[in-house]
């Protein structure tokens, strides 16, 4: 097959051969488009897992960590090179995450998970308002890490922005890192122990409050990193957190909470579902289609596609 040329021979004729090539490259383009969206959702979804793993809380302020990460990095990038700005943003937002846990969550000794989840919603609003006052209402973005706004990698008539590869690369590294941390380090195992059985973990000498602070810090750091890598594509502004958090949360649920790898699969799946829906239905229905399928999956497998069935039943006690 020759490389298809969009806008070429299909202009007026219905040469079926040309059509088929064109359709093939279009299908590939939808696929890449789904991966582009999915990579954004995946990188957001991973952040939900860590706090959930350690505390059982769904942190609805996760989107705000992304926003803060992007905002801080954009601000720093004026003065220092990009890699330093991103590192600085991750460090600062991690600190913010730890401070939030120390200020708000540590005080609630006998919490119910529901209380804490509601507090994360309140925090999301407060952080958003704070960002509006610290910065302003304007939309900003980091420069593309490779190339610029128009560069794309082309193959077989389809194209993808190099930034998507950066996002996917980040996702890969974060998943590997988390896997290693949670399975093979003492701290990571202690964190998982806090989640599965807090009383037993305490009896085993694990400092549960410190573990929770650590999980907030790490989660904030992951969020900030995600906020930086997606900033060139999605752009960064004070209101970006909530909609991203909803999509990321959906992706995390679809994959199965508590498992970073599953979150990635969930994210990519939501992205692909949206792209598939756009290819057949008017674009305005893409959320409807994606979420309808999400609901169907949850009806059949409440624990998510890759979640362990018993994982969430321990939390309510």
């Amino acid at each position, binding site marked *: 097959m020759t490389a298809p040329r969009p806008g070429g021979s299909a202009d007026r004729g219905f040469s079926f051969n040309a059509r088929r090539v064109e359709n093939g490259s*279009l299908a590939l383009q939808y696929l890449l488009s789904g991966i582009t*969206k999915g990579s954004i959702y995946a990188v957001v979804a991973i952040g939900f897992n860590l706090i959930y793993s350690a505390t059982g809380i769904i942190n609805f302020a996760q989107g705000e960590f992304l926003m803060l990460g992007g905002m801080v990095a954009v601000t720093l990038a004026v003065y220092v090179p990009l890699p330093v700005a991103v590192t600085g943003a991750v460090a600062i937002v991690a600190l913010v995450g730890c401070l939030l846990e120390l200020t708000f969550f540590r005080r*609630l000794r006998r919490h119910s998970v529901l209380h804490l989840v509601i507090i994360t919603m309140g925090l999301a609003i407060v952080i958003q308002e704070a960002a509006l006052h610290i910065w302003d*209402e304007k*939309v900003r973005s980091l420069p593309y890490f490779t190339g610029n*706004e128009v560069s794309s990698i082309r193959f077989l008539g389809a194209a993808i*922005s190099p930034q998507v590869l950066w996002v996917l690369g980040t996702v890969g590294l974060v998943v590997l890192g988390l896997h290693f941390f949670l399975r093979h380090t003492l701290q990571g195992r202690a964190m998982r122990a806090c989640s599965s059985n807090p009383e037993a973990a305490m009896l085993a000498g694990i400092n549960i409050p410190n573990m929770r602070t650590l999980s907030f810090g790490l989660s904030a750091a992951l969020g900030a990193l995600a906020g930086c890598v997606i900033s060139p594509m999605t752009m960064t*502004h004070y209101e970006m957190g909530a909609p991203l958090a909803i999509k990321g949360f959906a992706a995390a649920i679809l994959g199965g909470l508590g498992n970073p790898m599953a979150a990635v699969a969930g994210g990519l799946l939501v992205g692909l579902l949206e792209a598939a829906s756009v290819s057949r239905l*008017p674009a*305005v229905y893409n959320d409807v289609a994606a979420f309808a399928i999400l609901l169907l999956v949850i009806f059949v497998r409440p624990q998510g596609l890759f979640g362990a069935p018993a994982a969430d039943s321990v939390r309510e006690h």
Partner: protein
Amino acid sequence: MAGLCLLGTLLVMAGLCLLGTLLFTSSCAPPPSAEPVKIGALFSVTGPASFLGAPEEKTVQMLVEQINAAGGINGQKLQLVVKDTAGSPEKAVSFAKQLIEEEKVLAIIGPSTSGETMAIKDLCQENKMLLVSCAAAETIVNPVAKYVFKVPQKDSQAVTWIYRTMKEKGISNIAIVSSTDGYGAAGKKQLEDLAPAEGITILANEVYDKQATDLTDVLTKIKGNSSVQAVVNWSIVPAQSIVAKNMKQLGLNVPLFQSHGFGNLKYVQQAGVAAEGILFPASRLLIVEDLPDGHPQKEVLATYKKDYESRYKEEVSTFGGHSYDALMVVVEALKKAGEADREKVRDALETLTGFVGTAGVFNFSATDHTGLDLTAFEMLTVKDGKFVMYKK
């Protein structure tokens, strides 16, 4: 114990929220000398339409200071009462009531968005309150309400410019993409309504979520239709920059037309090199340097641009220009009326002609409460990261 702690946390949060709200609704009150004339202003300084409200608020604060420093109007100083509606029609209604009943202002300028303006149109009409809106929708002045005016160009005029430019370029088959919010929906309707008369065929018409983070799938669909000769996008930031970037990344190399909402150099910077060649209708405020010296608007535009940019250290936008026009037509009518009597000021405004503002030369009449015609627009394009006049 836990309950107490939770209560404490909630109180702290509530306190923070309240503090935020207080900060938003501060009103500016210069020290009055001999009964100032109160002008009310409703702008969405924060929230989703803050890209409109923020420069609008900055502009009127600056202008009122300038006017007062020069001795005021008819010997009276102006007092500005600004309320931040955060883009919410409900807030616009309650603030409008406050301005009418408590503050008893001479006139209200704003709100920033069409939705908010329509929410208070009847309220102002019933209370005989002069309203000069900074929003674009046709319905604000059609049908004409005696006390309601607006200063931005109409959406339909922008669409007419876009379609005529297309015809000059030999384009007749187009695709429309627009956002799900009110701005996108209003533009989409005008684009659909005017297409047949201008000989334009709409081959694809897609609506996307205004919070969309990536639009390559929607644009892939358009790329799949090889008869599309141009794309029109009707949305605000960040989507209008994302469309531009995604089109170039996909290799969808047809001209991209944007709405007049693209009129801020910041958006060009966000889209970077992807913004090159974007076509959009806008007022001449963005290309002051390109205007010939004798142009009637040149002096007004250059002065406003210089004052705004030196004071706020940011690029001037056409939105700030709308609040300039809204305030200045009221001021001009006030001068003409000679006293701060609302009825007289309204009559003076309705008969105001030849007033040079940032959007164009205003000629109000009993049937035309916008006062602008097609000449208030110019087709602009982006070249080397700057706005320039589009030449065939």
